[in-house]
């Protein structure tokens, strides 16, 4: 509750679930951990299209976008999301993702611009640290 903290610029993070799977427990756990880590988390809920995610990132002027996906459609959906984000000129947004993502997809996702990939069993503190680190480097 210290007053010093509140004068620092706030880290804003968008947590979104693209695609059709409705299992949002993972996304909610991450959102909650980031909240407890001092971030302002814009939570969009499930079934977001690439356009909706990119538009929310623009309007909310977030520093970081985190995508949760369990359906296995990440290699289909993520490129479209990245494209929409780039189309809107949001080139300084840090991207990370989490969920059921096979190891062999790491390279493809890294090439797309995802600098953090968090799989089941990740310590949430690692995600909080990743976000703060990303913003620090950025600013």
């Amino acid at each position, binding site marked *: 509750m210290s007053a010093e903290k509140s004068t620092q*610029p*706030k880290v804003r993070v968008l947590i979104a679930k693209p695609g059709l799977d409705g299992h949002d427990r993972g996304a909610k756990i991450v*959102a909650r951990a980031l*909240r407890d*880590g001092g971030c302002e988390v814009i*939570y969009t*809920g499930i079934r977001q299209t690439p356009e909706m995610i990119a538009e929310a990132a623009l309007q909310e*002027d977030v520093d970081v976008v985190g995508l949760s996906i369990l359906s296995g459609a990440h290699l289909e959906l993520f490129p479209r999301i990245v494209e929409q984000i780039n189309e809107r*000129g949001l080139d300084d947004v840090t991207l990370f993702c989490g969920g059921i993502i096979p190891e062999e997809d790491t390279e493809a996702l890294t090439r797309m611009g995802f600098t953090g990939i968090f799989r089941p069993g990740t310590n949430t503190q690692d995600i909080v640290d990743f976000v703060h680190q990303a913003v620090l480097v950025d600013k």
Partner: protein
Amino acid sequence: MKDITERFFEGDRRALARVLSRIESGNPTGREYMRELYPRSGNAHTIGITGGAGSGKSTLTGALAAEYRKRNFKVGIVAVDPSSPFSQGAILGDRIRMQSLILDPGVFVRSMASRGTLGGLAPTIDDVIAAMDAFGFEYILVETVGAGQDEVEIAGSALTTILVNNPGTGDDIQAMKAGIIEVADILVVNKSDLPGADMLASQLKALLSLAPPAEYEVPLLSTIATRGEGMIELADAVDNHRAYLDSSGMLQIRRKDDARHQILSIAQRMLLEHVRTGSSESKIEALVDEVAKRALDPHTAAAKMVADSVQ
């Protein structure tokens, strides 16, 4: 820097988003933007939407915005959710209820955390509203955090205040208490398909009838925001209230009240900042220790801190 405000005035939404962030962080750049934007604001009609947690504020905000879109007006939405008192973090989840508006280029939704402000709003809310106003939105809907009985700040920031009630939240004595109900320009019973809605509506109606006769009578409307029911009537009621503000001269009074309030609260923030930076961390900690030990009372400690900072 010139660049971004130029883009702002050309209608670039990214520039608007950036400007809002700078304003929200309260830094000198944000204040510079405000100097440029403020003279171009004052054209929008601002609507405050308040009510208890779970009363349906977000859904109603989205539904009312959709009604304004049907009428071809551009709508800015500011949705405030609480910050954590422990981590200063926040979960801003009001967009979830506004999904259908997200891809509409005539709508811009911005979530804000309350950042320690009491009263249901955020410290820079008036600046954010003014920026959206200057950007050219014709209606600006401001959704407060879930309000209890005393979060009346919204009435200072908005021209029309809508209080959203829902069934099952207490008897008519609750509604008779002073506070939030006094600042409502429009009363809504939302979720009016649920049991108890008719009872609540008649209690509120009875309550309104206790008020002395006035030039403007607060209307009571029933809505089911999830289905968009009652939004035509609600938008009409807002226009009716605006017409009253215009014709009665209240608009000028409200604008002056708002200006006074803004100046004073910004001055208050500046002074607090001045006092805080005027004393060293160790001096403040020493005072904190003394007061915590009961060796000094908080009034004397505060007076010392203020005296230190003006030297």
